[in-house]
């Protein structure tokens, strides 16, 4: 078989193990997917710590006394619509529309920042009423788990700003497109972690 056969024919006839290297897009996505899974395993350790320690309030305030479900619902909405805006941004990138990409990035950033502001306000109110991370094992585990997620969101926001800057300075290079795809995966994976957080920490509090 000649090496320069048309790609459409080869994809049908040659088994996947003999097709040679995958496209760059697939390889980048897979590599970053492995990173995300290892990151989720880090979160799983914090989830395990929270699950074990959530009853250890040491006579201090319990989760049911501290958490406000309305705030958490708004936070969840922020992250969810931020994820949707990020998907819109990915679509704009596929279509190579810079203005739409910037609009999507702006919406993603504003909603992510709104989430962070709400979360930090919640943390501040808890610390102000004496329910800081040093109060009980439950609160240590809570601040470690939710704080780790918040830290990831902050890093994601910084990454997003840097990606918009790269689109303006470097243009639609394959390198930049790959990084944008990785950012999009990162942002959606954070949403998956947040689903676990609001289910186990906030809704599971009794």
């Amino acid at each position, binding site marked *: 078989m000649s090496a320069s056969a048309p*790609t*459409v024919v080869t994809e049908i006839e040659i088994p*996947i193990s003999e097709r040679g290297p*995958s*496209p*760059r*897009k*697939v390889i980048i*996505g*897979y590599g970053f*997917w*492995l990173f995300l*899974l*290892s990151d*989720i*395993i880090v979160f*799983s*350790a914090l*989830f*395990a*710590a929270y*699950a*074990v320690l959530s*009853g*250890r309030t*040491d*006579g201090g305030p319990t989760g049911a006394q501290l958490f406000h*479900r309305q705030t958490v*619902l708004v936070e*969840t*909405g922020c992250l*969810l*619509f931020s*994820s*949707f805006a*990020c*998907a*819109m941004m990915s*679509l704009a990138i*596929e*279509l190579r529309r810079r203005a739409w990409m910037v609009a999507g990035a702006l919406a993603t950033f504003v909603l992510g920042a709104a989430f962070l502001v709400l979360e930090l306000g919640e943390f501040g109110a808890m610390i102000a009423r004496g329910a800081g991370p040093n109060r009980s094992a439950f609160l240590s585990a809570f601040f470690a788990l939710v704080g780790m997620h918040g830290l990831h969101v902050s890093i994601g926001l910084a990454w997003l700003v840097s990606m918009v800057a790269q689109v303006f300075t470097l*243009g*639609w*290079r*394959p390198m930049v*497109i790959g990084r944008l795809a990785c950012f999009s*995966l990162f942002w*959606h*994976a954070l*949403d*998956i972690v947040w*689903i*676990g957080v*609001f*289910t186990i920490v906030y*809704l*599971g509090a009794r």
Partner: protein
Amino acid sequence: MDERELRQAQSGDSETPGESPDWKSGLVKPLMGLAGSIVLTLASFWAAGTPLVWGPGVPVLLAALAIGQMGVHLVFFLHVSSGPEGTNTILALAFGVFVVALVVFGSMVIMANLDAGMASCGMHASPCPQSFGHPPLSAPGAPTGP
């Protein structure tokens, strides 16, 4: 600009072949993901506060809704598929889920077992700050803490 476009065309990875993106077809998946997530999120918050569901069944319902929403995110936002390019992704995901389950449930079972073995320091007993994490293995009269 010409040089960039040339490089992009040569690399051949800007778009997958046979896939011509446009707004309408690209919008379907994110919109479905958004709608599914909104419904499942509201259902979760409703289930956590409703008196209509039998109390002990609420955590199970919440877990089912959370797993469903994670599935929606994986399929519609992270584009995990069972297609030929997705095989490795699915395998890695399965391994990740396995490790996460091992870490979380393993920790819970082991810690519950340790807790049951600690006679003086049960979950509902008064706080015992000095001996936290140390099972009472020492002989009577031995110092229990620094």
